[in-house]
């Protein structure tokens, strides 16, 4: 028989996944709006952010209630703590998607260089992070951290590309800056996906790998080399 508490935990998990899916769709929508100059879609992305914020508030309230009334321990406690932290990461992804959507209306460059690729990877990283929340897979978590290195590289390439554009034609500076900001937003989205995956490691194993030296970017880069 499922207890009310177990039922509450299942509801919280579903709500978190819904929030994650909305954020993932928002990132995809924001990139599409940018590449296709679709201002209606950009507005829809901005509206979706409110929905994400609302879900974060609901989760925060419901987790607090669960903690205060059931005083959970062990895996239940880890799940609830992780839900609070992951929901915050997802909310930040929603904010970045909204920022990209807002900037998409100001950007008039025909060449977005690595941004489409970064958008694709970002979406995959969010989806993978959500999937390991549902079914824990440490290898998949590590693959997300490795993907993040690729995103950092793409962001670096965007920087160099934008710099060369400005050097060639200084009148493009304003538009180029928008591209740079978008690139930075995507890079942050991927950092949030990494944070989500690290929280799931804690949730599943109680190991706190957030600041573990072996999982820092420099160590991962060295391992790849």
């Amino acid at each position, binding site marked *: 028989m499922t207890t009310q508490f177990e039922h509450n935990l299942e509801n919280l998990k579903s709500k978190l996944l819904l929030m994650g899916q909305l954020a993932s769709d928002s990132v995809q929508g924001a990139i599409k709006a940018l590449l296709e100059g679709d201002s209606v879609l950009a507005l829809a992305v901005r509206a979706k952010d409110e929905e994400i914020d609302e879900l974060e508030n609901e989760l925060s309230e419901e987790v607090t209630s669960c903690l205060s009334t059931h*005083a*959970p*321990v*062990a*895996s239940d*406690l*880890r799940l609830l703590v992780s839900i609070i932290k992951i929901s915050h990461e997802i909310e930040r992804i929603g904010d970045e998607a909204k920022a990209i959507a807002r900037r998409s209306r100001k950007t008039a460059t025909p060449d977005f260089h690595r941004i489409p690729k970064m958008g694709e990877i970002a979406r995959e990283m969010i989806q993978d992070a959500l999937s390991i929340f549902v079914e824990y897979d440490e290898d998949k978590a590590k693959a997300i951290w490795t993907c993040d290195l690729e995103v950092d590289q793409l962001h670096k390439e965007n920087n160099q590309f934008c710099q060369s554009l400005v050097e060639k034609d200084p009148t493009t500076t304003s538009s180029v800056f928008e591209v740079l900001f978008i690139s930075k937003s995507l890079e942050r989205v991927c950092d949030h996906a990494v944070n989500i995956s690290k929280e799931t490691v804690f949730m599943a194993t*109680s190991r706190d790998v957030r600041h573990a030296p072996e999982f820092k970017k420099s160590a991962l880069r060295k391992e790849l080399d």
Partner: protein
Amino acid sequence: MQEAITTSPERSPSTDEVDPIDPAIRIRDLDFLYGSNQVIHNVSLDIFPKEVMAFIGPSGCGKSTLLRCLNRMNDLVDGARIGKGSIEIHGVDVHDKSVDVIELRKKVGMVFQKSNPFPKSIYQNVAYGLQIQGVKSKRVVDQKVEESLRKAALWEEVKDRLNENAYGLSGGQQQRLCIARTLAVEPEIILMDEPCSALDPVATGRVEELILELKHEYTIVVVTHNMQQAGRISDRTAFFYLGKLIECDRTKKIFLNPSKQQTEDYISGKFG
């Protein structure tokens, strides 16, 4: 022979590098029976000096019986006996024939679920143990009574009414008086059998604070059904089920990520 669970209490890294701490209590391969009913099965466990060890588990799991074995309170129960194994306190087998049980209970004091002050004054309750030990000097007894009441965080509340009957104290104060009475005879180990189960949250909080203070000087073993209490006050927690020691580890570990599924299920309220 069951391997003893000897996860030592948390120590600073520098302490870890020096000699390991000898346990204050060493339980080995213990079987305990009431008549033909075996209630403890092959338990091995070390309890270290100045740590708070919590015993948890569902009713009937043997945790109170084990606690009472530590100062031979079970001697008073008809048919109660050790099947095999041993309990050593600082290297001395407590069930050895040469052990003076009165001396043992002086060294290993006990606080019960329900406070049980004597029908005497507050002062007399604390002084009683000293007087039966033959301490005659009023100055020494006065000093010890004050010291014990201070350690039990009760002195400020009772110093002006030491001659009043102990039954006039609140439930929480009575329990702290019983702790003071235990402290007066200078034990090394204090056993507490659900010491807060009859207390309200404020009184419970005071006793818990007191336990955290006392652990600087005493080894404390607490039986509790209150998981949050075990989490708040103990350094290590031992989970018992059907007379067996299922798991013993640092309390933080037990309540965050226990090694055994049975432990997780019990502390999460899925059974028991």
